[in-house]
């Protein structure tokens, strides 16, 4: 990760955040908040880049405004390769019929159906996933409930989406007279809802988590306790809940973050670093609340718990003094 710091050192986002003093290690690097990101990247995107991006995508930040994230050609190809591995690991099998429910808005999660269906355009050296994908979105189904009729009738074996969107689409489908869904596998984006409502939808639930800076999600496997964050891809820390509370009481206080490897059992806000080619991400506060449930030498499992209910951007500014 010292390479990551070296890559980042010349970029205005980090020069501004680091006050001109390059940290010696990742643990020393100050946090970048979504507010910093919007101020320095979204407003002056041309000055923030390490490599020309092929894509700018919106990434939703729980409880806050979304941020624009750049992705270079290499980042996209790497994401396609990783997505394939994540979907396989999550339990998707050749022949599966996948119903993918997109969130409302043009978020990076909208790339999921294409990654499922056609990632081999970007990684021709690997065999395809071999699945058929039916994409839907809660927004379009709200206007045209009969869009659900055909894909539901194909009896999808896999369902992908966030609990709220799946519930909204299922309710609309029911009103359109479509029988309820029951799948082998649910790839659940974001935090799980009440357990009983999931049991009706799928036999097995595997969590997925989108992190800023990558168009492919991170995921678990059937039977895993959470989402696998491989250390080779993402350097993850957690700001424990109790530290966050202290920061609210004392605005000048900068909460410490604990590397996930040392945070077993901890619940808190996820902080991530990624060696992206377009714009490396160093210690970005994701505002995703997670619990670290398993750690190993090569990564950790975390359970997404939803939004870290932080203050809005101007309040964050005041907190930072």
């Amino acid at each position, binding site marked *: 990760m010292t390479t990551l710091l070296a890559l980042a050192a010349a970029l205005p986002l980090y020069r501004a955040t680091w006050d001109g003093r390059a940290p010696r290690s990742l643990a020393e690097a100050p946090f970048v908040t979504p507010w910093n990101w919007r101020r320095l990247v979204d407003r002056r995107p041309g000055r923030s880049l390490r490599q020309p991006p092929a894509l700018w995508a919106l990434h939703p930040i729980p409880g806050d405004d979304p941020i624009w994230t750049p992705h270079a050609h290499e980042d996209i190809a790497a994401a396609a390769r990783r997505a394939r591995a994540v979907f396989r690991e999550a339990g998707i099998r050749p022949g599966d019929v996948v119903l993918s429910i997109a969130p409302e808005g043009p978020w990076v999660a909208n790339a999921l159906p294409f990654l499922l269906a056609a990632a081999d355009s970007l990684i021709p050296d690997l065999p395809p996933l071999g699945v058929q994908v039916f994409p839907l979105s809660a927004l379009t189904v709200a*206007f045209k409930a009969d869009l659900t009729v055909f894909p539901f009738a194909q009896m999808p074996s896999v369902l992908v989406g966030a609990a709220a969107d799946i519930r909204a689409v299922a309710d609309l489908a029911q009103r359109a007279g479509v029988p309820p869904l029951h799948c082998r596998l649910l790839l659940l984006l974001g935090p799980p809802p009440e357990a009983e409502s999931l049991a009706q939808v799928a036999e097995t639930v595997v969590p997925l988590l989108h992190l800023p800076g990558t168009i492919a999600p991170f995921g678990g496997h059937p039977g895993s306790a959470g989402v696998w964050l491989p250390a080779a891809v993402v350097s993850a820390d957690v700001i424990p809940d109790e530290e966050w509370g202290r920061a609210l009481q004392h605005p000048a206080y900068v909460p410490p973050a604990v590397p996930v490897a040392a945070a077993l059992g901890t619940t808190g806000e996820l902080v991530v670093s990624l060696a992206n080619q377009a714009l490396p991400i160093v210690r970005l506060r994701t505002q995703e609340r997670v619990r670290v449930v398993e750690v190993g030498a090569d990564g950790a499992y975390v359970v997404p718990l939803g939004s870290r209910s932080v203050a809005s951007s101007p309040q964050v500014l005041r907190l930072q003094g």
Partner: protein
Amino acid sequence: MPILDPAVEAAPPGDLRARQEAGLRALLPRAARSALYRRRWSAAGLDPARVTTLEALRQVPYLRAADLREVWRDGREAVLCDPDVRIWFATSGTTGAPKWTPYARGDLVMFEEVTRRIFHMMATRAGIFRCAIIGTPAPFVSDAAAYALLASHAAARLPVEYVLSSPTQAERTLAFLAARRPSVVVGFPSLFLRIAEGIAAGAPAAARRAWRDEPSLRTLAGVAVTRVVHVQPRHVYRPEIGLFGGEPLAPYRQPLLDAWGLRALELYAMTEFPCFHVECPEQSGIHLWSDWLVPEVIPLAALDREEADGTVPEAVHLFDTAAGMVGEFVYTSFGHALPLVRYRTGDVIEVVALDRCGCGRTHPRIRVRGRRDDLVNLGLIRFSTSELDTRLGALHGIGAWQLRIVRRGYKPQPVLYLVPASGAPAALGETAARAVADIEVLRLGIDNGLVLPVEVKIVAEIQEVRTWSGKRRRVIEETPT
């Protein structure tokens, strides 16, 4: 930029015909295995192996949208011509239930290749091709198109930069694009004009907000400028090209130039076949990629005869028509998952030119004039005439009605002419206006400023418009073409 594949894109028409015939020889036996064609062709006594020429193709029965909706009752496997299906997209279902279309790997490869053709067509100067796409969410193909572009262009390492967004995040996207000015914008023309109205109305407040957030000379100048200048998108974004689809561009072309200062090019695409046909920067019609389909046209006169007495109309190969001919577009696609053989699109096209274009391409050029079917077409907002008839039929006191679609500026406005029956209530006009505006999709268009509110005119007599065969038309589009 040079043409991506001159041997195909600039091939003489004879070569394109030969290519189409070679395609047919492979296509028909493959398509015959599908339940979509098997029974229909068998009933017509057609031997698919003998359909080896464009002339022979004329014996093949037409395929209609309703056939594509109904065929799936036989089960997916019985219908698909290629088992390697990857993804499905749906039409919006304006004229009935949505039609879902399978895309096999081969279709996606073609989709990706066509996006590379378009890149070479649009990237008229060196440097980064920076493109902002305001698409529609799944399950519509425009949502996936963005990612197909990305896959294709990223795989080829083309110098592209896409900003992907949707109407739900238009404001946020525009703020970002002010700093990352796109050279190309892609979307629906009416939507981009609606966005332009929003920019013009919101510019002073946005400038004040920018000054409050970040006081500087630049933001202060912004506040001053918006006080004296009626800010238009062309002052802020300055894209060179706009690629617009989903509705005919003609009514919007000049307003787009005025508001955005861009060169508006038309895109014609259908969910049923993932091939995007586009106008080149010569702006002399949409190039129909005639290596991936066999284009035919049913002349208007033949369509009218069909309406009058049910005669099955004859289609003419588009290469054998003359510039100016207008009719329904019929095509045979060389698709993989579900090739369409003589598919009647319902779209009315005009043949613009058949000779070599100034860009060097030889693929024929067309314009889309509108729809032929039972549709009230207000651009993005469409609904069936039968829905309108049902609403009006439920009211008492209407002797006759006619709907004329007029344009006020670039926006469509439905004008309903009513002849009251005897004993009609005094408030018939208001009741009818409410009944029409209650059509959900129309209300959505009116609420979002894409369509002007319905105007009702009570008249003593309807000024009838008839086809040459005498059929009365109840929905008349007065849109200038």
